[in-house]
Structure formats: structure tokens, C-alpha cells
């Protein structure tokens, strides 16, 4: 549980030396309690106090870094049950399974196919980040060889799935440099697995068949000193799995239960008989608290919608994604190129600019600040009115760049055409198509 300002104050030197930048230790304590200051700003806290404070100020759900390289990410670190209460921070990671009896050539082909699953959206590159290598026959040599192959030849990070300590040891030697997640410590192997994780400083998943079982394992590993843990409650049917996810998240956030303050891993691959149904199960875990979600396969038709959902759910609700106001050049426009205007909502901008680009018609795209609202929303909120848009076109400098006097406005903003015309005397206002998908056809046919 977080400490109050007064509790923190008791642990500080109480000298009011001001080196932390505020006049008193009490003020500093208050800032620490509300997350506005970092403990490191005070050079005089004792080690003992530091330890107590660190423990108390540790996040309720530990952020666990997984992997290395461009697909490295954290899972966990969440602070709320509902995204509108603040935001969700670390997007659910997606994994696809490769079994240890696969031929290297097949794995190579699979990795190539999976690597192609990358989608550009709102300036982000959406993609799955993990391969779960699953031991199916106890052949440690083959397992280690594939782990090494995947780690070295692909961007994917790894979940190493085996309950055999020797098999895991071998793979850790071969692929440990990529910070794989080890899956999983169980009641039978917890000592050996704890040791491997500790010695190699790797994240470790625990697996049990109940939350009580999970707590026992987590506590034991905590005593051993393993800090980066991931939880599998063992539920393999959706109803129980949802109940467990909610129970674990609530226990950590509302009950201050340190034994459950870790991200979770879930296995749609063991909960359905086809990858589409797995996709639906995965989508539940994206919404309700899955840290890592393991699928039997990664196919574009399933993973793309999941990545969209993930993007939506993990967007910060208090800060719409925006782009900056201004003139954007698409495809080297010149003084005769068409001029289009839209809002600064990132989704709107990226969709529209993408369509203009696809049309291969060079153009000027004017982005008017509308506080991150879409066209219709901005219009309804009075942030994309005729006079505003007209004024913006005048001021933004486009008139120095083009010789013509035509402005294309979004079809959904047709209602502002008259007012824009009034503001921009001498200009022709053309109402473009409503849906961006028709922009290419519209531009090409002009």
C-alpha cells in the first residue's frame, strides 16, 4: 500500500536543507506521496529509509520487461481496473506457438510469415512481439537449437515453454541474451526454475491450478529473490479465466496483495479448437487484463483486428492522439497541386494522408488544430467551423505556396462550405467525398 505524506516524512532527515528543490522535508514528502517527486532528489535519505520507501512506493502491479531489441516491451505496471480511470500503460503482448519438434526450415518459413504481420497505423507500427517455443518431447538439444535460431534470426522475443529444468537451462544458455520469459515454475519444479531465473536475471512465469497455488509459488520465489514474475492461474475455460483475471487485478490494486501484483499470461491456444475462436478469447483478455496472450498460430485475419483492439484499449483516454497544426506536403506538391484541409486528430490525419498518398496525386494537406477531434466531432464542438477554417487557411501560409484558389473540404463538413467561402473571398470551396476511401478516386478524376 502506498504511504501517506506524513508516513514518508517520518523517514526523511527532517533537516529542511532544501537541496531537493522544495523548502521543507514535509513538502518533499507530500510531493513524493502524490508522485510529483523522485526519491533520488534527496541526497540524504538513509539506506534503511530508502528500502522502506522503495517497497512502499513500488507499483501495485510490477512492470516486467520482456525481450530485447525492437520488440522488447513491458507487461504489467497497470494502476487501474478501468481505462477511463487513468489509462492502461503496457499493451497486451501477443505470442504464437512453435513446437520444439519443428524442422528448422519450417520454423524459418513461419518466422518469415509472422514477421510480415506488421501494420502501420496512426504513425505506429503494430505487430505481435513474441514466439512461444513449446517443448513437446523433452528433447533439450532440439529445443535449445530452435530457441537460438529464433533469437538470432528474428526480431521476435521468446517465451520458453517447458517444465523440465534441464530443457530450460539449455535454451537459456543459447537464447538468454534475448531476455526470454521462462514458462513455467510449478509446485514440482519451483526451486530449480527459481534458480535459473535468478542466476540469469530472467523473468519467470508461475503456473498453478488455482489462485491459492499461484500465491504459494510467488511467495516462495519472492523468498528466493526472483522479482520479475508473470502469473498463470491455470484456468482454461473462458468463464473461469475471466473470473481469475478480475480477481488477480483487483487483489493487486484494491487489496494491496503483493503476491498477485504481477502481470498475467493467458492461453487461448488451449481454450479453443480453431484460431478464429482463439481470437475472440484473446480479445477478451486484451480488454480484461491479459498481460501476455498465447495463440496457436498468428494469422493476419485474426491478429490485425486484435492489434486494432489493443491500440484502442491502450490509448490514453485523457489525451487524444494528435498531430501538429500546419501544412503537410504529400508527394512533392507544386503551385498547382490541390489543397485539402482536415483536423489534427491523429487517426483522421493518418487515414486522410494515407489515401492522398495512395492516389499518387501530389497535394497539400492542411491540418487545422481541432484539439484532437475528428471532423464531425470537431464540427459539432465548434472547433472546425467555417470562419475558423477560413482564417486558418489565410494564416497558415499556403497562399504563398500555390497559385490557384481552390480548397477541398471534407464531405462531412459540407455545412461549413458557405462560411469558409465568405471568409476566403475569391476562393472556390469544393466539398470532397465523405469517406477518405473515396479521396483517391476523387483526386484522380479531377
Amino acid at each position, binding site marked *: 500500500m502506498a504511504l501517506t505524506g506524513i508516513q514518508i516524512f517520518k523517514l526523511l532527515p527532517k533537516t529542511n536543507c532544501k537541496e531537493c528543490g522544495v523548502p521543507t522535508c514535509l513538502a518533499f514528502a507530500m510531493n513524493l506521496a502524490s508522485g510529483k517527486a523522485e526519491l533520488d532528489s534527496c541526497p540524504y535519505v538513509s539506506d534503511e529509509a530508502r528500502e522502506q520507501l522503495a517497497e512502499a512506493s513500488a507499483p501495485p502491479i510490477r512492470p516486467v520487461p520482456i525481450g530485447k531489441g525492437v520488440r522488447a516491451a513491458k507487461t504489467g505496471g497497470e494502476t487501474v481496473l*478501468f481505462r*477511463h480511470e487513468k489509462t492502461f500503460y503496457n499493451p497486451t503482448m501477443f505470442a504464437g506457438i512453435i513446437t520444439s519438434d519443428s524442422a528448422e526450415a519450417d520454423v524459418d518459413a513461419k518466422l518469415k510469415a509472422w514477421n510480415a504481420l506488421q*501494420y502501420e497505423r496512426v504513425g505506429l507500427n503494430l505487430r505481435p512481439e513474441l514466439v512461444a517455443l513449446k517443448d513437446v518431447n523433452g528433447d533439450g538439444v532440439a529445443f535449445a537449437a530452435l530457441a537460438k535460431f529464433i533469437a538470432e534470426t528474428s526480431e521476435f522475443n521468446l517465451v520458453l515453454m517447458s517444465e523440465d529444468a534441464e530443457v530450460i537451462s539449455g535454451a537459456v544458455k543459447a537464447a538468454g541474451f534475448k531476455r526470454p520469459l521462462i514458462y513455467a515454475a510449478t509446485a514440482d519444479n519451483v526451486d530449480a526454475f527459481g534458480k535459473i531465473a535468478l542466476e540469469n536475471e530472467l523473468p519467470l512465469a508461475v503456473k498453478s491450478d488455482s489462485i491459492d497455488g499461484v500465491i504459494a509459488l510467488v511467495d516462495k520465489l519472492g523468498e528466493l529473490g526472483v522479482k520479475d514474475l508473470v502469473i498463470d492461474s491455470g484456468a482454461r475455460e473462458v*468463464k473461469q479465466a475471466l473470473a481469475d483475471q478480475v480477481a488477480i487485478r483487483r487483489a493487486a490494486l484494491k*487489496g494491496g496483495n503483493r503476491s498477485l501484483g504481477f502481470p498475467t499470461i493467458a492461453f487461448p491456444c488451449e481454450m479453443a479448437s480453431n484460431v478464429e475462436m482463439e481470437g475472440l478469447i484473446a*480479445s477478451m483478455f486484451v*480488454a480484461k487484463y491479459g498481460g501476455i496472450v498465447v495463440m496457436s498460430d498468428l494469422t493476419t485475419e485474426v491478429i490485425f483486428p486484435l492489434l486494432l483492439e489493443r491500440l484502442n484499449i491502450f490509448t490514453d483516454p485523457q489525451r487524444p492522439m494528435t498531430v501538429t497544426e500546419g501544412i503537410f506536403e504529400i508527394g512533392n506538391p507544386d503551385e498547382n497541386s490541390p489543397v485539402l484541409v482536415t483536423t489534427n486528430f491523429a487517426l483522421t490525419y493518418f487515414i486522410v494522408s494515407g489515401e492522398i498518398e495512395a492516389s499518387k496525386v501530389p497535394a497539400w494537406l492542411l491540418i487545422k488544430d481541432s484539439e484532437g477531434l475528428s471532423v464531425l466531432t470537431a464540427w459539432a464542438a465548434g472547433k472546425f467551423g467555417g470562419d475558423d477554417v477560413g482564417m486558418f487557411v489565410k494564416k497558415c501560409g499556403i497562399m504563398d505556396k500555390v497559385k490557384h484558389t481552390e480548397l477541398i473540404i471534407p464531405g462531412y463538413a459540407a455545412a461549413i462550405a458557405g462560411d469558409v467561402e465568405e471568409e476566403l473571398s475569391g476562393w472556390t470551396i469544393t466539398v470532397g467525398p465523405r469517406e477518405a476511401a473515396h479521396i483517391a478516386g476523387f483526386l484522380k478524376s479531377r
Partner: protein
Amino acid sequence: MGFELNKESYSGGIKAISIGKGDSAITVGGESCYPFHTFEGDMPNKPVVAMEIWDMEPEDWPEPVMAHFKDVVADPAAWAKKCVDDFSADAIVVQLKSIDPNDKDASGQSAAETVKKVLAAVNVPVIVWGCANPSKDEEVLKIIAEACQGDNLVLGPVEEANYKGIGAAAMGYGHAVIASSPIDVNLAKQINILLENLGMPMDRLLVDPTTGGLGYGLEYTYSVMERLSMAAMVQGDDKLQFPMINNLGNEVWKCKEAKQTLKEAEVLGDPEKRGIMMEAIGAISYLMSGSNILVMRHPEAIRMTKEYIDALTD
């Protein structure tokens, strides 16, 4: 001592509301816990899937959905019947696309005829969805309300701009209404209160929070639905305890990625499977945030969604 769930303390629930007529009526809502949180409350009525039919032939439905309805799109009654008989639709939503003043601007009479034909063809509840032009919807829904007196239709969307006319007609002729507001808790509450003050019986009210498509505003709707559930159940706000309906298929299938052919978007794979997954994953997202009625389009997305609902409730 073993682990104990930190239970949510609910002080209210969603009203159970019956829609449709006689033995074809169904009940939606009634839950006393967050969506599918049956470990700490009850969800007596499963969320249902309504299928949409249009009152005119859709021009921009992508081929993979159109393929399933080609034989019936010219005939709303046959279309509705197919949805119920072949695809187990729990309810039918007649989308009155033809009345849009920016499009065909069809009359209230012709819309009423369509609705009557649909009513005669199916034995499930019928929901009538306007074109979201407040004044035209008011004009048309009033005519339909009268023409279908006693048929227990559900009429929507009802907005602040037209609640008086549609509300009065629904009260007078025995229909339920869908109170609609643009993704905002306070506005949702306000339209409910306006309808209540008008005299609308509160056991004939559904709420449309406004639905965004997957990747196109879903997060806003998702969160407003969670906030509405929270206000209804945890804060016990009795002005917000109504079942929610999401007009989902319409949003998902108009977005670009659901329409692109394989040639246009090779990286997105099979267009039909992709669209199905986009619709079904959108559906699960809204189920998790409290949807009671999902309005959907593709038969396979519907089948999967219903299978999922069963798995979470049975």
C-alpha cells in the same frame, strides 16, 4: 486462509426490459453485476444479437457479406426471415436507410409498409432504426408508430432534438424507444430524464451510447459504456440503469479495412475472414463493456459471438 475475491459492492443493477410482442418477446438486461462477472452477481439474461436488414438494397456492402444476402436484399421481409430462420437472429433491426434526406428521402408511409411486412414475416422482436437525421426520423417514426400500433416495436435513435415527438408516439401506440446520445455520460442521463419527464414508461427504454468501429473510435464508446455501467451499478444511479444497444455491424463494415479486396490489401489476408474477425472482436469488446444487444451483419461473426456468449454465461 485461502484467497478471497475482493468483491465489488453493487448498489444497483440494470433493469430487465422486455421487447417484442407476445410469445416472440425477449428480455434483455437485468444484470446485477458487471458484464459476465457472474462470480459476484447475476446476469439472468444473455446479451442478444440482432441482425440488421436494410429497407433498400445496400450499394456499398463488401462482397463477402453481400454474398450471404444476395437472394433477399431486394425484399426486406424475405431478408428478415432468412436472418431468423438461417442465422438464428434474436431480433431484427430494420435500418431505414431509404428515408435519409441526403439520399433517397423516402416517405414515412413507404417505411411503415416495409416495417409491417417485416413484422409479418418474423416472430422475433423488431427494432426500427432511423437515419440519424433528427427531424426526418421524428416524422417517419411517428408514422410507423401509428401504423404498427400494438406491435411493440423498438424505435430509435431518439435524441434531444426529437424525443418529444417520437416519445409521445411510442407512448401512445405501445412501443419502446432507444435513447441515443453521442458518447457522453451526462448527455445519456439527460435524454433518459427528458423521456421520463415526458411520461415515457421507464420499462420501455433502451440506451444507445453511440457506437464507434474497431479502430475507429471504439475506445470512446467502450469507456463510456463502462462508465455508464459503473454509474448504474456501483453508484446506483437509477437514471442510467437501462440495457445498452450497439449498432455495430454498420460501423465495422463501412471501414476501409473491412472493405478492401485481397488485391488492395494483400497483407490483411482473406477479406471475408478479416471482416468477420473485425466484427466479432468488436462485438466481444462491447460485450465486455456492457452491451445487451449487438446489432450485427455477417452470419459467421454472429455465430461466433453467440458461441462466445454461451461460453461466458452457461
